[in-house]
């Protein structure tokens, strides 16, 4: 331990001598592990862009929640109202004008 109060000391790490490269994962075994994990309840929680049941829309749907300063969100809502468009249409409109 070093330093006046002993704050400078570290821990003892094992020597790492030219470590063996890790074996590449066995994709089949990994797939089985993921399936077994699913049965234990560890499932994918990634947002998906699946089509919802019901009347088919022309393209896949998704959603996003955008927390941010009220000033910006209010401006965005006001912009959509002015343009008489929905929120996603307003976003689409702004994205089309990007870089200008």
């Amino acid at each position: 331990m070093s330093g006046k109060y002993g704050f400078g000391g570290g821990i003892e790490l094992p020597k790492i001598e030219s470590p063996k490269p890790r074996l590449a994962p066995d994709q089949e075994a990994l797939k089985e592990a993921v399936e077994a994990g699913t049965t234990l309840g560890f499932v994918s929680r990634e947002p998906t862009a699946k089509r919802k049941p019901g009347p088919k829309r022309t393209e896949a749907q998704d959603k996003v929640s955008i927390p941010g300063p009220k000033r910006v969100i209010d401006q965005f809502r006001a912009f959509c109202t002015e343009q008489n468009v929905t929120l996603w249409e307003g976003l689409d409109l702004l994205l089309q004008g990007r870089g200008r």
Partner: protein
Amino acid sequence: MFVITFANPKGGSGKTTSAMLLAEQIALSGGRVAILDLDPNANILAWARGREEAGRGVPFAVHARPQVEDTVALIDGLEAGTDYLIIDLEGSKDQIVTFALSRTDLCVIPMDGSPMEARQAAQAVRLVETTARMIRSPIAYTLLFARTNAAFLTTDERDVRQEMESNNINTLPVRIARRAPYTRIFRDSLLLAELPDLVAQEMKGKTASVIDKAQKQVASAIENARDYAQAVIDTLTKSRAA
């Protein structure tokens, strides 16, 4: 490269704090360490960003969560420049946990010793054992009592410990107590090692007893973090030798 993963499907069990304390101790001791922040809350990424914005260096690389299916490739891709990769997982039953565990050398499962967290920790243990069986490679694991009361052992913790002992579940011999310095490092994007000087500055003009109390609190936190990190490294070394 050693991969040390922190898992418990229950949020708030102490995964992020335990991961950060370990990373700092390894970095201070000369190990090349990186953190993979797989928690969508991204508290470690925010910590690193806070340090960069304040003009303080970040002593280890912090990597953001990739797409689930890219997790294994990202972990393996870090091997060249890293001795210790620490993975902070999210507190939910997400598939990404299985992907991370499949490349893990030691899984640390923090819990506070309450019956609710013990049940969630048991689920993490089951997933570790199942994943190890499926990939036909052992994955060492240990439970860690974190966010505990520094002064005494609660009856809940005693009860959980008894059950773990009777089931031969590995437990880290050092607990991480709930301490103010461990939350402060996240609040102000600090390293634990920076606190003694900072506290000394903040305490200027206070009475000797107040200064002494504040410094003792920091010193205890550092000592606890160091003992805990050494216990993790010893467990890792033993599991590799077995």
